[in-house]
């Protein structure tokens, strides 16, 4: 190893911080190299000088003062009130009570309003009449047909189904056997040529012929109104038509729902 490498290791060598093999190689080099040996001597003197940096002999008064100071500070820390205790000292309890009471009242009002809106929501969703005499817009899941049950979409939730029936029955009276009714002329889409309008489901939509191949059927009617249901090719869309019996058929009211 050359002098430069040895001189880099001398600061660690003088205090025994080198591994054994490196320390031995430095020792061997120092025996033969005067310059490196002089450098190592300089480091030894410097380290001795550094080791002379010993603290003065502190007397017992010093340590008593130190210990008492620590214990006094600890006592202060224990006696010092916490953040909440400090806050509580300046708190106006009457105002705080009033604020808490107001908060409770407002929370109760908000909860009541929320519960009320939750109760009202299912009725609106089911299409029930919100005003007396108003014609509802009923929604009903598509009924499966005998021709192709695979094309029938999944049944709607039971509670909605029954409420729809109830809503319709409320307007048009108890269900009658399905009967033949005339088709309104302004359906807005072509009807299949083989549409059988003898009452039951007459024609299943043909997906190959387009999107708006309707299925026409006449569901139960009452003496007051006639109900016409048209099932489009989209199983989720059904057009329901209510026509009064005492006026012309094409002047009935139509409602759509999806």
């Amino acid at each position, binding site marked *: 190893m050359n002098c430069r490498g040895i001189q880099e290791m001398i*600061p*660690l060598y003088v205090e025994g911080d080198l591994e054994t093999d490196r320390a031995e190689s430095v020792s061997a080099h120092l025996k033969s190299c005067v310059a490196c040996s002089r450098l190592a001597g300089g480091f030894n003197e*410097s380290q001795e000088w550094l080791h002379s*940096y010993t603290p003065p002999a502190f007397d017992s008064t010093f340590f008593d*003062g130190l210990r008492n100071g620590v*214990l006094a500070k600890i006592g202060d*820390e224990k006696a010092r009130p916490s953040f909440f205790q400090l806050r509580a000292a300046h708190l106006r309890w009457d105002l705080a009570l009033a604020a808490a009471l107001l908060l409770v009242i407002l929370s109760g009002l908000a909860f009541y309003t929320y519960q009320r809106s939750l109760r009202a929501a299912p009725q609106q969703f089911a299409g029930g009449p919100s005003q007396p005499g108003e014609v509802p817009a009923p929604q009903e899941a598509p009924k499966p047909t005998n021709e192709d049950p695979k094309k029938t979409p999944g049944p709607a939730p039971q509670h909605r189904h029954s409420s729809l029936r109830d809503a319709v029955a409320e307007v048009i009276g108890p269900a009658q056997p399905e009967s033949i009714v005339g088709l309104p002329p302004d359906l807005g889409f072509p009807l299949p040529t083989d549409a059988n309008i003898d009452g039951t489901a007459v024609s299943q939509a043909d997906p190959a012929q387009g999107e708006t191949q309707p299925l026409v059927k006449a569901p139960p009617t009452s003496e007051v109104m006639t109900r016409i249901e048209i099932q489009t090719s989209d199983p989720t869309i059904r057009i329901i038509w209510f026509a009064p019996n005492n006026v012309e058929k094409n002047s009935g009211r139509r409602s759509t729902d999806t």
Partner: protein
Amino acid sequence: MAGDFAGVALMTQYPRLDESTGDRSGAAIAYVIEQAKEGDSYAFEQLITSYQHRVVATAWRMLGNQEDARDAAQEVFLRVYRYLKKFRSGEDFSAWLYRITINVCRDAHRRRGPLDRFASLESERELGNLPDAAGSDDVEAAAILSQEHAIIASALDMLSPKEREAIVLRDLEGLSTEEVARILGSSATTVRSQISSARVKIKQYRDRVLSRRRREL
């Protein structure tokens, strides 16, 4: 009064942790630490008594004067009191204490700034860095020693904080490189590098001081 007697009775149950007699076995320290953790003020006082010399010496070496060392030692024991519950049983309490001392001294050094390198003899005496001396020879010797200490303190002061902490723990406190590495939270290789660099800088500083003295003579 009854409380005082109870306190005395309680104190006699503790093993004596007298630093001067060196009676600081691991089991005795662990017992006192556990008692102090549970809020026993006598046990905590025992801890202070046992470690105050070491903490003050380290703080003095790090900060260079008695006043700062005492303030730092007080802060060290306050932090020990606050965080003793977080100290895990079985850990090296001495290393934990060194770590707190180093952190406190680092904060104090940062607040205080560099040392006044030309402190007068009077100010050194006021700071308690000079021993009380009766004769004029003693005063002269004390003055020379104080001057040397001031130079060494200046040499340590010009080091980087990491170098200063490593050299104080390794060369002045006499800990091993591995212990220093554990206390400072670094590797032994890093500590060796810091120590080597610090020794070179201190030697260069001393060489400059000696050459200036020779020129003045």
